[in-house]
């Protein structure tokens, strides 16, 4: 349609009985742009920090397969996306000035013809969430690395993932994914991220602990150079270094030599896993004896090293212990609690904490989770938690 003229605008003002003296001289004549009804535009409400990221030129990514709820990822954070409906109509208008902008610009145009780019009665809302990282381990476990002698790696398999692959499949930000790869001791082999098959990992660890023993090295000063020299004929050098990095802290001494301070707790824990995975349940005191005998000289086993790995039953006679890995449990809060209550009807806070700690969102505590998902009662003078509803 034809653009409105000053005369038409003034006539409308007169009909409306508005006094032009009380108005700023500039007027916006709003009309609908050619694509306004097409629905290609939508609104995304920004959490603090995201606006600054966009203004700094960084991109955001929406990730999610058809069966997943979409999340939005910045470089280092993940957000749930939800549609919020408004009862009002939201029109988005480019080039529309505020009173401040009009007052600041004395030469502003008398009539500003503004085209409405689009309109909507809903927008995307964001809420910071835990990155959905369980899938990462699941993908890498499709084809764990069994060592160079394994026949498996000779065949072409599509169960291998590069960083790019993981970025497009995992609902988490890049930094969160890279951090998690470190946490689970993944390593890059020929450009693909791999997790070591547990038996192979134990084989590598055993080479190292036996060498430490035969060389009588201090556990806090294991030399990389000698490990590579002595073990290089048995295993690839990258794997020797990888196992040292996984189970030790790397440092360089004043002479520039690389050493590792071995993580006693992590080594004891791995050996416990190796023992526990061979049976459903163990007599606790028998297990503790075998476990202590199995770890390298100089290391001391403690039950608290097994948090989130094993569950002790103090109510059975004799007391027992069994393998229960937190990473095998569901990622969703309600499903996690259901699964824990299926395993055991009543939990003390001390026992359940290692199995729900990872569910805590940014400012949440284990206490708030328990209040939300469990019911408490007293049993023999001890506070215990059970399910809020019957578990099938």
């Amino acid at each position, binding site marked *: *349609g034809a653009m409105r003229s000053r005369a038409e*605008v003034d006539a*409308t*003002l007169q009909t*409306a*009985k*508005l006094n032009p003296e*009380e*108005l*700023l001289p*500039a*007027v*916006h*004549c*709003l009309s*609908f*742009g*050619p*694509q*306004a*009804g097409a629905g*290609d*535009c*939508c*609104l*995304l*409400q*920004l959490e*603090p920090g995201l*606006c600054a990221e*966009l*203004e700094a*030129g960084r*991109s*955001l990514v*929406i990730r999610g*397969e*058809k069966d997943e709820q*979409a999340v939005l990822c910045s470089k280092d954070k993940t957000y749930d996306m939800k549609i919020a409906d*408004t009862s*009002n*109509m*939201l*029109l*988005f*208008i*480019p080039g*529309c*000035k*505020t*009173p*401040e902008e*009009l007052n600041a610009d004395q030469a502003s145009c008398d009539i500003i013809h503004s085209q*409405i*780019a*689009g309109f909507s009665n809903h927008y995307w809302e964001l809420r910071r969430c835990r990155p959905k990282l369980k899938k990462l381990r699941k993908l890498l476990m499709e084809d764990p690395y069994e060592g160079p002698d394994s026949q498996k790696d000779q065949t072409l398999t599509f169960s291998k993932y590069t960083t*790019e*692959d993981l970025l*497009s*499949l995992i609902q988490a930000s890049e930094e969160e994914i890279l951090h998690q790869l470190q946490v689970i001791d993944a390593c890059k082999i020929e450009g693909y991220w791999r997790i070591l098959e547990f038996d192979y990992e134990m084989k590598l660890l055993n080479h190292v602990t036996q060498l430490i023993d035969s060389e009588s090295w201090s556990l806090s000063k294991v030399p990389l150079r000698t490990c590579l020299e002595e073990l290089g004929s048995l295993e690839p050098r990258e794997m020797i270094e990888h196992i040292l990095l996984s189970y030790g802290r790397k440092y360089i001494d004043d002479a520039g030599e690389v050493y590792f301070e071995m993580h006693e707790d992590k080594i004891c824990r791995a050996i416990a896993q190796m023992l526990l995975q061979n049976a459903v349940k163990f007599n606790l005191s028998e297990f503790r004896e075998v476990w202590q005998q199995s770890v390298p000289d100089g290391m001391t086993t403690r039950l608290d090293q097994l948090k989130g790995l094993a569950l002790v039953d103090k109510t059975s006679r004799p007391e027992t212990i069994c393998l229960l890995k937190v990473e095998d449990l569901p990622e969703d809060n309600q499903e996690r609690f259901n699964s824990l209550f299926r395993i055991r009807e009543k939990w003390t806070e001390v026992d359940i904490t290692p199995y729900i700690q990872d569910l805590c969102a940014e400012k949440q505590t284990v206490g708030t989770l328990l209040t939300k998902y469990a019911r408490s009662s007293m049993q023999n003078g001890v506070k215990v938690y059970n399910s809020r509803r019957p578990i099938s």
Partner: protein
Amino acid sequence: EAAFLSRSEGAGGLARWVLVELQGEVEPRQSGGLAGSLLGDLHYTREGVPVLIVGHHILYGKVVQLEKPFAVLVKRRAGESGPAGPQTHYTVTALIKTKLLFKTRPKPIITNVPKKV
């Protein structure tokens, strides 16, 4: 499946748009759709109060600085497939930090009825 939100190319940073929030629904007055049709005239009083004249109604509103700004996303056609399937690309075309909120009931414009002579 992944969808990318990237800055639209353009010198001088992201465009700044304004949101106008109205009660009710937008419907074309004439058949033939919305494109090109007029909504109304937007004035501001000298005190900075937005006044919108839409058809036979006057709406008084207020300028609100948004606590949480909006990004305007424009969907582009799906690009080449990535490892997880076809990828959609959204371009962040503008940021909205201000809205004009018209919540008051519209005042109808009553045209003068000439006196009978």
